[in-house]
């Protein structure tokens, strides 16, 4: 299989794995069971890699990964997720992780979009503007 056909097949498998626009673990299990029976091993490896990348990307699209310095209340995390749900037009759930190197504020990543409201970024911008 060529790389293009692998990408197309992985995209088709991802579409089969969604239920109501959200990745379903049951459907993913069914897709994997069907693949293991229908494809030989040498064709399965690149297809599974592409399928895994698509699943991760799709899961990331539904998560607001929040890096924050200091404590962040759950209500604040929910407010951040609600904001991005409203902006992107799909349900986004918050996943928070503490990182004190950011000094203050938080950085949110939804899919490929990054919103940075940290003190460390402001200091870096300040240094860049002064130099």
């Amino acid at each position, binding site marked *: 299989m060529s790389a293009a056909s692998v990408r197309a097949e992985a995209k088709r498998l991802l579409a089969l794995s969604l239920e109501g626009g959200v990745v379903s673990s049951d459907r993913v299990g069914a897709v994997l069971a069907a693949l293991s029976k229908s494809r030989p091993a040498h064709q399965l490896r690149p297809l599974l890699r592409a399928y895994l990348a698509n699943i991760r990307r799709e899961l990331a699209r539904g998560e607001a990964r929040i890096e*924050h*310095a*200091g*404590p*962040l*209340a759950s209500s*604040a995390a929910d*407010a*951040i997720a609600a*904001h991005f749900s409203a902006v992107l037009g799909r349900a986004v759930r918050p996943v928070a992780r503490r990182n*004190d*190197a950011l*000094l*203050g*504020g*938080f950085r*949110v990543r939804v899919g490929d979009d990054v*919103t940075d*409201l*940290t*003190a*460390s970024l402001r*200091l*870096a911008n*300040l*240094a860049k503007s*002064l*130099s």
Partner: protein
Amino acid sequence: MTFLSALLAAETAHEAPKAGAGPLGDIVHLFGSFGVDKAHLTVQVVNFALLAFVLYRFAIKPALGQLEERIRQAEQLQQDRAAAEAQLAAAQKTAEARLVAASDEAAKILADARNAAKAAVEAARAEAQAAQTEVIAKAKAAIEADRVKMMDEVRGEVSRLVVATAAKVLEQDLDDAQRGRLNEAAVKQLAR
């Protein structure tokens, strides 16, 4: 001479009886007494005429011809001399005119050469001045670029140090309460 003497003697003998006849005869007789008689006179006249003819034919006429030739040659020489003098005068005048023209031409060439040299000197001076100005401008630009670069480097280094110091101070000094307030402020900023 013998023939002439005999002829004169015969003539004298034939005319003698007539000598005493009239005044003419007296005159002839008188001249005859001085040794002048007709025959001799005639002979002498003839001799003189012959001599005159011979002299004229072979001496005087060639001499006159030569004299006329000399006169003609002298006149020709005079004419030639006059012509030569005229040519000389014309040549002198031409030479003077050419000399004047050459002098004018030389003066003009000299003036042109001076002007050309002056223009060349001015052009070289302007070129040297332009090159000098360009070198100075490049040097100033290089110095200014170095200065700006150095200032940028210093500014960047100072900024980096300030920001790094501030980050370290903030990282050490901020407590959770302060960080929580910062997070709340960021949430409010996100909502705006």
